[in-house]
């Protein structure tokens, strides 16, 4: 299969220069809260071409002269940076993150390394960036590109069609690892997409073997649905309360009547399509049920159910949504022009789907579908009520289990210990913690630092001063090791813990200072570093007669400029965590002194700290805007199931500014900004609620 997602880039071709935004305000949901960001106004024409002309005239010659020696696509292209590509406007927009970092690096006088730009040259770049480039980043929703369900989404969506999760019969003894989900067992892992999330399946089209496995899975579901427990399953599917004695219920569906078969099939279609089913399709299926030739009714019902679920309408998201300017055959044959509407709110079914897949990784439930069917979902109060309802539902745990796990690469914790109850304890800690933050609507700051945690007997040793408060755990007689649920534990004396960053599993999955520093840069601060050069070699031992600590030896080792440019970001963060041993244990004062542990550091921007606690405060104060921005970007990217693009920048800006406050001219993450505030802002954002034609 050679099909690749026709990238949104192609659609954007030449789009910027000639784009005339004509909006019909009446058509926007909630009066289009996004209109307030300034780029969206009815009938306003935005001249977006000027920024690039100015770039070519003023900035590009400067880059060519000073930077191309090392950063040129036909030359060195160090760190993978190819500045000549910015000559194309589309490319410059696509690589807006590169533009950001070029400006940042020049501002800090970090490049060129031997002789940075003159002050006034830097000013010229900054003026262009602030005056022309940033304003050119229009706020627009992405085009609606259909994509197949990820295997997690497929698992939960099948459960919501059938009414039960498809499970594999296997005994889950203690200390064993099992995959109970049939879907997860039979389908291969989805590779993360460009966004870094597996729900971003745009780059991974359905393969033949996947499709055949899905067919097997659906068969298995139908066998269970119409199997010996059919009374329970069918009654649930048809919303019947079988108020007959238990032994009599057995007769209800023993022979499936024509009316029942039709009812079952309609319900399956409704759930599988997640929207109004095109009449032609559903009615044809129902007629086939009646067909007198061939097998019995039940056999025909099986075939029809299977066909409904294997339909692309089920397996793909965003396929049937009304798109602005959609030139469907139906529209064309009716001779209706779709007009110039380029940006439009999602139809209600699409909105319902976006909401439920974001928060539950699952298809919309009955309540959402009903609201969408009545055309009410885009009403702001109702919509926000639904957001809260979905978050209150136990299924929102999937935000922690999938979003947080993929964002923070938490699945690596599972290989920290090969004793499953211990690995499970370390792994569930951040998950339960993250779920708590959302469920209880805790302040965002608590993600990074707090005075409580979740622990169980396997992790209690990391909280020596406070473990005494945990409710007693006694193993039942004859039980050697077992997995135990977490409980919330207030940390009064264990001051070195709190928040995600100091959780033992997170520390243990990143063993050394370099991996810890890199992880914090990438996952918490959102800074992406190029790959290290291939010939880095080993950290040498101490020179004869000298007793150097690892940090001292390491700093000697990486003192060359090519190492330093990245390591000056990585090392302060990583070494700040050196008090935490390889397995995440906090070293005693004595042990730290013996090992000559030095946790102090200076950030490249000049801030000093003595230990991790001080660094944590920097992350929550002076550095908190960047930290918050990355958090917002990750949430939004996961919610949209795609990489963020230049046209999302303004939406991110808006959310960041809502959640932060001005302190002496610096944006600080607001102490009272909560996780539900963030999620609500994401669900109300322009790219989440709108589509572009």
């Amino acid at each position, binding site marked *: *299969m050679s*099909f690749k997602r*026709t990238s949104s880039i192609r659609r954007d071709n030449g789009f910027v220069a000639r784009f005339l935004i004509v909006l019909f305000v009446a058509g926007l949901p909630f009066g289009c809260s996004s209109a307030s960001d300034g780029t969206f106004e009815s009938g306003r024409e935005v001249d977006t071409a000027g920024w690039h002309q100015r770039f070519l005239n003023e900035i590009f010659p400067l880059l060519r002269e000073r930077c191309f020696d090392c950063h040129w696509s036909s030359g060195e292209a160090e760190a993978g940076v190819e500045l000549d590509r910015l000559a194309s406007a589309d490319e410059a927009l696509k690589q807006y993150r590169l533009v950001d970092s070029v400006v940042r690096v020049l501002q800090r006088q970090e490049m060129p390394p031997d002789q940075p730009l003159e002050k006034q040259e830097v000013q010229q770049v900054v003026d262009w960036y602030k005056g022309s480039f940033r304003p050119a980043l229009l706020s627009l929703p992405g085009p*609606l*590109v*259909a994509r197949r369900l990820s295997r997690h989404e497929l698992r939960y969506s099948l459960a919501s069609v059938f009414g039960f999760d498809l499970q*594999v*019969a*296997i*005994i*889950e*003894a*203690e*200390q*064993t*690892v*099992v995959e109970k989900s*049939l879907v997860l067992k039979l389908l291969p892992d989805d590779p993360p997409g460009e966004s870094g999330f597996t729900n971003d399946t745009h780059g991974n*089209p*359905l*393969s*033949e073997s996947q*499709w*055949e496995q899905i*067919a097997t899975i659906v*068969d*298995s579901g139908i*066998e*269970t649905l119409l*199997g*010996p*427990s059919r009374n329970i399953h069918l009654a649930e599917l048809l919303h019947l309360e079988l108020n007959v004695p238990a032994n009599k219920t057995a007769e209800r569906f023993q022979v499936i009547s024509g009316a029942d078969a039709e009812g079952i099939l309609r319900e399956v279609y409704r759930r599988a399509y997640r929207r109004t089913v*095109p009449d*032609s*399709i559903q009615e044809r*299926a129902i007629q*086939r049920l009646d067909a007198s030739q061939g097998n019995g009714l039940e*056999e025909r019902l099986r*075939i*029809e159910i*299977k*066909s409904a679920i294997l*339909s*692309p*309408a089920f397996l*793909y998201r965003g*396929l*049937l949504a009304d798109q602005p300017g*959609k030139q*469907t*055959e*139906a529209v064309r044959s009716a001779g209706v022009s779709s007009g110039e509407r380029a940006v439009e709110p999602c139809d209600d079914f699409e909105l319902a789907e976006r909401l439920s897949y974001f928060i539950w990784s699952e298809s919309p439930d009955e309540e959402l579908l009903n609201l969408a069917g009545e055309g009410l979902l885009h009403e702001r109060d109702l919509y926000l009520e639904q957001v809260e309802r979905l978050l209150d539902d136990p299924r929102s745990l999937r935000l922690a289990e999938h979003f947080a796990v993929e964002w923070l690469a938490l699945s690596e914790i599972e290989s920290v210990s*090969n*004793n*499953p109850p211990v690995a499970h304890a370390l792994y569930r800690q951040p998950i339960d913690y993250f779920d708590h933050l959302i469920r209880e609507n805790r302040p965002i700051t608590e993600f990074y630092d707090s005075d409580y945690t979740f622990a169980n007997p396997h992790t209690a040793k990391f909280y020596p001063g406070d473990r005494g408060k945990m409710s007693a755990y006694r193993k039942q*007689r*004859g*039980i*050697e*090791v077992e997995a135990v649920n977490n409980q919330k534990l207030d940390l009064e004396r264990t001051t070195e813990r709190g928040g995600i960053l100091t959780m033992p599993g997170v520390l243990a999955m990143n063993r050394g200072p370099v991996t810890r520093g890199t992880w914090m840069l990438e996952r918490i601060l959102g800074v992406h570093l190029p790959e290290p050069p291939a010939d880095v070699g080993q950290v040498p031992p101490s020179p004869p007669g000298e007793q150097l600590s690892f940090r001292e030896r390491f700093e000697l080792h990486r003192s060359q400029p090519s190492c330093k440019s990245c390591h000056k970001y990585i090392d302060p963060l990583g070494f700040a965590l050196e008090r935490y041993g390889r397995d995440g244990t906090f070293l005693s004062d004595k042990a730290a002194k013996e090992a000559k542990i030095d946790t102090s550091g200076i950030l490249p921007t000049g801030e000093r700290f003595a230990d991790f606690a001080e660094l944590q405060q920097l992350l929550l104060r002076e550095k908190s805007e960047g930290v918050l921005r990355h958090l917002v970007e990750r949430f939004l990217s996961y919610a949209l199931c795609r990489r963020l693009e230049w046209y999302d920048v303004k939406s991110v800006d808006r959310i960041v500014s809502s959640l932060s406050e001005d302190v002496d001219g610096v944006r600080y993450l607001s102490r009272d900004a909560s996780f539900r505030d963030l999620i609500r802002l994401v669900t109300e954002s322009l790219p989440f609620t709108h589509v572009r034609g």
Partner: protein
Amino acid sequence: MVKRIDRRRFLRDSIGPVLPLPFLHSMSTSAEASNLGGNPVRFVTLFKPNGVHPPSWNINGGTEFDFRMSPLMAPFAKHRDDLLILDNMGDFGFSSHANSTRRFLSGHHQNTKSESVDQLVADRIRGRSTVRSLELTTEGLFPNQIGCSYISYDSNGDPIPRESDPQLVFDRLFRNPMRHPKKREQFSSVLDRVMEDSQDLIRHSGAEDRQILDQYLSVVRGTEKKLKVIAEQNPDQQPATLERPLAPANLDEQVEAMLDVIAVALWTDTTRCVSYMLGNSNSRMIFDFLGVTEQHHYLSHFFRNFSRPNLDALLKISLWHMRKFDSLLNRLKSLEDQSGRLLDHCVVLYGSGMGHSDNHTATRIPIVLAGQGGGRIKTGRYLRYSENQELGRLHLSLLRLFDVDVSTFGDSNSPLPGLDGSPFDAFQEKQFESWVRFGTGEVEVQGRLRLSEDLNEARIFYVDVAGEPSLRIDVQFRDFHHFNLAYHCGTPIRLRAQVTEKNGQRVVTKIDSLDSLFGKKPGTANG
């Protein structure tokens, strides 16, 4: 001429869900003669985790034809004529859980670079059966010692993934649209509908969506093509009347359903080779359906965790394992094909990889063969070899039996004699003098060591001395393990030890030295 199957018997003997029997017409055609001439011989292995309580398993005394089944063998006493019970199988050292698991089908724990015996046999006997082999289990992976979870290994010595769900195995074998004509037809109808609906959806979608749908359709067409090719190539008839097993509610139902699937898969000649683990070695399963609330592994260490209720619980579990073996044999005896009972054309290997389940001694490992393997095994006998026989020798014999040309296996290079009735070096009692000499607080004794058969004191050993009361040994785990009492059980030893007087009886409480009179010393290697 096809014989009738006693359907009621099959139903009666089965404990769990039962598959109605398929029509027989396909049998005479599908079970074609294999390279073994006449009827194909099938190979089934059933692994029992966590060793045994030896006095309950071992046969005391007895000869090849004149022997009495042990308490744990009671459930399959009725199969006596179809069994070949092997005794004195094992090694000289201790055996970790992972090593004992590898030993079961690979002959030796260090045989980590080659195929296990079932896999070597599978290639040889496959014939025209559609599925080369099944590797089955009951529970999840045990990552702490991953080797505890696998008995079947591929040609690199790497573990072969196992399947646990009887419904899924059944679907794969008997409802696979790629093999089953009726299912194929049904699947084709589904493909037609899906394609028709997709065409409809294309009418409702824009250009972008159309590309997605085209891609989707090309996937569906790929499957359609595959079905056509298979339909042309494969006129294979499979019985359509088999009923899918029910979803199991507990381990017992899961195993019973799987045994049904195994029996029918062999009978329909869908596969000829099956390995099945009743649990991981080291299994922490809780047999709640037997009323047991402790973990199996905890109970299996019955010396350290001794109590009468614990031992009873362990024996319940071991007995359950034997019952599952019994269930399998019942099925294989009930099913018949053109030349008789299915069991007569099977070799079933039942057993474990360790003996005493507390100190993991690798001696007197439970090993039982069932079925005559098309006349190549002479059953109804009990073979107690004179010396410890490595499992690798048994595997070599089995490989010969299946005409696999291999001259060494594991650590062994000569096959185990006697399976086909050929002469073998049988265990013989040797004459020895027994005596006991007490000193102050100490004793020197020569006599036969045995583990108490009284379940109330399963951690107690005795030395039997002619004309004297048996000398009671009540030592801590350290001595039990260090001097490997379990290894020497049933054999004459000389013992020097310290005694204490308890209730007017002199009891050994600490061992100073222990020597075997005739046998080899036990190894100390963790093998």
